């Protein structure tokens, strides 16, 4: 049929290809070009070529901002990736045994993945609310007066908590699917040897789960460095930039600092972010794949 259809197969490709190239590929690559300009985002202002000026500014004048954003990104990414994956594996393991009511738990834990950042973020905003929010009341019972999202020392950790709460279901279901792909015979063999459930988990489930661990860890690292939806809803990077990751900074610098919007400069930060994701993904991929092979 392909030979008789003439140009029609090509015509069919055009709409998707056009939208994809002009609004996805070209912009993704174009970030590097904008990072070399003084683009202001104003409709009729001229755009001038400034060479590496933005990079120079970022590494000299913007240095403290850059270091702080890198620190926040590292804490956010590391804590979320480790805790979310650790919990998800354990819970998936519990759900993969024959405990009652586990379907309800699966459906419930996955629900925030469907509800999205605005609903999840505002729900926890109400929970953390300093006037009558249950979390605040609970902490007050323990003798701690806290406004978790409004305090520079705690805001980042409150955001991390919500980020894990919101995405745990996703990792959990990927692990669960991975565990269900492990043949029952493997465990039967273990039973004959008198293996305890914990030892079976440690020495059979975890090694055989390596491919799921690779993909989940990678998705969590990339997601936390590039994604900032929940941070935007909860704190917008505040207070005093203590929860501003690189991604959040790009967004704020490009569009939402009322009198100092600098999309060109923001594109430079986006390049740093991109290189970071690229490097980490490469290293993680290499390390985790090697681990898979060894196991």
């Amino acid at each position: 049929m392909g030979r008789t259809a003439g140009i029609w197969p090509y015509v069919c490709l055009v709409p998707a290809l056009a939208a994809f190239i002009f609004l996805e590929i070209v912009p993704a690559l174009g970030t590097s070009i904008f990072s070399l300009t003084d683009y202001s985002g104003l409709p009729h202002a001229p755009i001038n070529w400034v060479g590496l000026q933005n990079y120079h500014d970022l590494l000299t004048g913007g240095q403290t901002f850059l270091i702080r954003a890198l620190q926040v990104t590292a804490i956010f990414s590391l804590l979320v990736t480790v805790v979310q994956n650790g919990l998800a594996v354990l819970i998936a393991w519990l759900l993969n045994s024959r405990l009652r009511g586990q379907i309800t738990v699966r459906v419930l834990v996955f629900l925030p993945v469907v509800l999205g950042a605005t609903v999840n973020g505002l729900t926890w905003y109400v929970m953390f609310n300093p006037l009558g929010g249950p979390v605040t009341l609970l902490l007050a019972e323990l003798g701690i007066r806290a406004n978790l999202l409004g305090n520079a020392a705690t805001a980042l950790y409150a955001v991390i908590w919500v980020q894990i709460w919101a995405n745990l279901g996703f990792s959990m279901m990927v692990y669960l699917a991975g565990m269900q792909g492990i043949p029952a015979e493997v465990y039967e063999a273990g039973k004959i040897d008198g293996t305890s459930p914990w030892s079976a988990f440690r020495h059979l489930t975890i090694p055989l789960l390596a491919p799921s661990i690779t993909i989940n860890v990678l998705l969590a690292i990339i997601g936390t460095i590039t994604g900032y939806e929940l941070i935007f809803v909860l704190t917008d990077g505040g207070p005093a930039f203590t929860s501003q990751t690189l991604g959040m900074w790009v967004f704020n610098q490009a569009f939402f600092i009322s009198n100092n919007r600098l999309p060109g400069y923001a594109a430079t930060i986006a390049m740093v972010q991109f290189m970071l994701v690229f490097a980490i993904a490469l290293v993680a991929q290499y390390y985790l794949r090697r681990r898979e092979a060894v196991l």
Partner: protein
Amino acid sequence: MIREDELGRVAAERPATGVQIGIRPGTIGGYVILGLLSLIYLIPLLFVLFVSLMSSRQFSLNAASFPDPIMWSNYPEAWVKGSFNTYFVNTLVYTFVIVFGTLIIATLAAFPIARAHVRGSNVFYVLFLSGILLPAGIIPQFFVMQQLGIYDTRFGYILLWFSRVALPIFIITGFIKSIPSELDDAAAIDGCSYIRYIFQVVVPLIQPALSVVGLIIAIRVWNDIIGPVIFLPSNSIKPISAGLLQFFAEFAAQWTLIAAAIVITASPLVVLYVFTQRYIIAGMTSGALKG
């Protein structure tokens, strides 16, 4: 890659393959952990639901309690004050147009790629695949949309979503490849026109994949917040997620109304989830599972 027989047969309904744990201390520990976990997920959701039905007086006196009296009026109040009529209609239009538009352009592209009807079909496949991994270039996107005069327009926002065809094409191509191609050859003899063939023969065959992909896109459009905040600053064309955030900013500290607005925004998704959760979970995790 998901195939027809796997679609919808998610982890959720497969039997457990793990070790059967009898009633032992380990089991009790398991129940305790699952119970605590359920509470951590239920409490915030129920709290927002309760607050949405409270009087603001009760909220300020004792928020952590059952609503008494039940203030149903919070809902119409939030709906009217927040112009949720406009936001709701906007989101329905965006969701409908983006879901069907994306499914159409993705299917049209996926079929010739899957069947190698175009030269270098693999190059196109890899090109689209790269879109799943590339970070969104929001700054150039802003520039392009401003230059084309489609910034802050419904059309521009919809077009932006059409560019996110990578994952739909990836899933649909995989699905088409799992269907035998004998029918295609028969159709060539009939002289059936190419595009008509895709819509009349291929689309019914891949309908399960299209439903799952459609569901995922619908949920993503409904939940998109960064997109509308950057590209749709005008209130009259905002979708509901951005409308909710706008409402939150305008009615700060009116927690009972904010809670009602949260429930209004979330409830269509909850209803959709209750009826299609197997497909939603399968679809949303399938991108990871093929890895």
